[in-house]
Structure formats: C-alpha cells, structure tokens
C-alpha cells in the first residue's frame, strides 16, 4: 500500500509540469521526425521504410519510459538536499522507495509523454497502429524495459551516494543506452560482432526489444527471456550494492 501511495504522490508531482512537458513533447516529436527523415532518405521507396518509420517513432515515444527517467532515481537530488535521511528512516528499503517513486513518474510519462508523441507520429508521419494481438506483448516488454531502465538509473543514484556527483555516471549511462539501446538503429544494422552482441546486452532490453515486439520482428518468448534474465541479475546486484553503500552514506545538505 505504501508503495502505491509513493507512486501516486510522484505521479501528481510530475503532473504539476504538464504544460512544460507538452511543449517538450513537440521537441521530442521533431527529434523523431529528424530520425525518420534520415531513414527515409537512406531507404528511399522500399517496403522497409514504413516499418522503419514505425520503429523509430515507437522508440521516440517510449524513450520517456525507458531512457529519460528521473535522474539517478531521485537519489542524487536527495543526497544534495539531505532528504535521503527520511527515506532511510522509513520501514522499507531505499530500493523499494525509489522504485515506486520512479514508477509513479514512469506512469505519468507513459500517459502524458509517450502517448501524445505516438499520436503525433500516427497523425503526421503515418506510423502503423499496433496490431491487436501484439499490443499486450508490447506493453509487457515495455514494462520490462522500464524495469531495466529504472535499475540502471538506480545504479546512477548509488554512484552519487559513493561519489556525490552523478554527472559522470549519468553521462555514461546515456551514452551506452544511446549507442546500444537500439532506439535509432535496430540490431541488424550494427556492424560486425556488434550485430550479435548488441541484442544480448541489457541496454537493448529497454528499446530494441519492445519496439521489435511491436513490429513483430522478434519473438515475444525471446524478448521476455532476455529481459527477465537481466532484470534478475541487475536486481540482485542492486540489492547487494544498496546494502553495502547505505552503510557509509554521507549527507551533504540539510
């Protein structure tokens, strides 16, 4: 129950910036349009173009749920302001609290960011709507993608407990997610050994798998197996590191 209450508070807090986010959505849509234009120029009038337009715009929409989550799962901000002590006083762990806080924000982003950007893509760029049979599998893999992304952001938060500034870890996460997440480039266009490596890494679980399941180019079983494997590995690592790091926490502000 307490988890849901945290999520709801986080959801409502995000909603305070709705107008800002709607302006930002337009910017995000233009980014999607730029990538769509690059692909259209590359592929020309081939049958693959339509699928690629959909792939890019689905990714551009879900970026707000699978990549641009709250920086370091809100932890760096709490460290700086000193409010992390309140989280540590509560009768549940930091991981639990961070998860529901980010989940509330994630749900908000899905409704007010991902869906509007997708609708713009559907109306203006001719993105294919989801096939009924693939909608549930897509949402399932999207949720898993969110979990993976949350765990990565949580690691950035843990980094800031240790090193105080999250910027380096945050930058490194963005770079890796950008390069290996597959939001701009699906696995088959990667060169050499990266073509085989990229779909096996956890970064691909955030974008490449949900949008490929949407298009039906990757089987649901394969996507789920890989996502679940990485969720378990990263979750255990997060548990272990939380235990280790929260013992030696340094509070900056107050």
């Amino acid at each position, binding site marked *: 129950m307490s988890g849901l209450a945290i999520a709801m508070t986080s959801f409502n807090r995000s909603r305070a910036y709705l107008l*800002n*986010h709607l*302006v*930002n959505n*337009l*910017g*995000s849509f*233009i*980014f999607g*349009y*730029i990538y769509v*234009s*690059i692909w*259209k*120029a*590359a*592929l020309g009038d081939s049958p693959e173009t339509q699928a690629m337009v959909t792939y890019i715009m689905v990714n551009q929409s879900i970026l707000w749920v699978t990549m641009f989550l709250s920086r370091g799962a809100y932890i760096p901000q709490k460290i700086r302001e000193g409010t992390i002590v309140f989280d540590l006083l509560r009768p549940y762990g930091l991981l639990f609290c961070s998860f529901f806080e980010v989940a509330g924000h994630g749900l908000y982003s899905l409704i007010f960011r991902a869906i509007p950007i997708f609708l713009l893509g559907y109306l203006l760029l001719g993105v294919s709507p989801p096939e009924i049979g693939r909608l549930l599998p897509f949402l399932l893999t999207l949720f898993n993608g969110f979990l993976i992304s949350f765990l990565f952001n949580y690691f950035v938060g843990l980094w800031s407990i240790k*090193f105080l*500034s999250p*910027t*380096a870890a945050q*930058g*490194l996460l*963005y*770079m890796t997610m*950008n*390069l290996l997440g597959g939001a*701009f*480039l699906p696995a088959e*266009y*990667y*060169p050499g050994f*990266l073509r085989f490596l990229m779909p096996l890494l956890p970064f691909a679980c955030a974008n490449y798998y949900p949008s490929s399941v949407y298009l039906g180019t990757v089987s649901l079983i394969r996507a789920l197996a890989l996502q679940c494997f990485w969720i378990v590995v990263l979750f255990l690592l997060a548990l272990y590191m939380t235990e280790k790091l929260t013992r030696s926490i340094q509070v900056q502000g107050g």
Partner: protein
Amino acid sequence: MRSVIALFMASLKAQYEYRLNFWLDTLINGANLFSDFLLMAFLMLSFKEIGGWSLGEIAIIYSIVEMGWGIFRFFGEGLHRFEELMVTGRFDLLLIRPMNTVKQLLLERIDFRRLGVVVEALAVAVFGFTASRIDFGDMWLAYISLVFFSTVMTFEINIILAAIAFWTVRNSDIIVLAFYSTRTAAMYPAHIYGPVLKNVLTFIVPLASVAYFPVGYLTGRITSIIALISPVLGVTALLPVTVLIWKLGLKHYASTGT
C-alpha cells in the same frame, strides 16, 4: 578586463576542485555526443549516402554545428541555465552590478568540461575532411569561418531563448523545442526534411545557413552564390532581433523574489 580574468580563473578553480569528476565529465561530455555520430556512421556502413551526401561530408556540417554548440556551452552556461536565475530571483544581483548583464552571464560560469565537446567536434571534422577527400589545406579557412558563424548564431539564438524566460520564467522546455531539435536537424543535409522544417532551418532558426548551405556550395551541390554568403546573412539578420528581444525582456523583467 581584470574582472573578466578573475571570474574566468574562479570558474576554473571551482570546477577543478573535484579533479576526477572534472576529467570524467569532460571525457564523457565529448564521448556522449560522439555516440550520436557513431550511430550515424554505423547506419552509413549500410547505405553509403544520405540524400546524396557521403558520411565525410555530413561529418563536416555535423562538426560545424557541434563546435558552435561546444564553444557556446563553454562560455554560455549562465545563459543556458538562465531559468535558474529567473526562478530564484538571483537575476536581481546582476542588475545592480556595473557591468552589462549579458557579459556577466557569459562569465558567470565558464564550463571547462565542454572542452570535451570541442575536441569531439574537431575529431569529427578531421574524419570528415579525410573521408570526403576534401583538401583541408584549401578548406581550413572556410571551416574556421563557418565555426565562427555557427558559434555567433548559437549565442544569438540562445540569448533570444533566455530572454523568453523574462516573460515565462521557465524556458528549458522551450529550449528543447526551439533549439535542441533544430540544432540536431541542422547537423544533417536539410533537403532530406519536409518543407516546414527546412524553412524553419533556413529562415526562423537559421542554423542551416551556417553549415548545410555553405558546405553544399563548397562541395558543388548547391550552385546559388547565396548559399555561400548565407552565414553572413543569417547572423546579421538575427543580430537586431536578438538585441531587441533582450532589451524588451529586460524592461519587462519583474523579480520573482527569493
């Protein structure tokens, strides 16, 4: 001038205090933007050309826009985070000092970590000149001039966008919409876009005029001489607009208090 040097040194000292973080941030700043270019390079291993332009040629326009951005962020962090000054009411402090507000903003925080972006942009340019077999010997003056215009234009656009915060207080999402997206668009050949975005890049946020048009002319893809002089036209046309909007904003400014 003495105060300029003093503020410059203060920024350097403050950032160099956390050495490991400073070097990591600088490195990652450059690498982060490089990952965008790398993805483009991966794509072009399969296609060779995008809208008739090779990867090397795209690298040159990419680098011109990126370098302008890197130099802007080096000096312009105060402008870039102008919203914070508005929200906290700290802009009042700048108004009571006997120095031009824009100059103070430029010196407020010099972000040395952005040198990573400048180095990355330079590396992309070197790659571009090598891969496209354009002789850097003939082109270096043109490249440096275009980087200069790109920087000036990035400053102009960002002063205008900062000034919007005089009315709206918050402007970071407007920056995403009006600048981040157009900056990214200007890194690729503008003719691959539809007429709306192409016209925006030519006439409204005219970043195509500092990279795509002149490089298009120099590589023989665009024949009109206007393409060659478009950087001068673009930067000159934006200047009075920039000054006017900033001055109007200053007049309109009402502090939010602390």
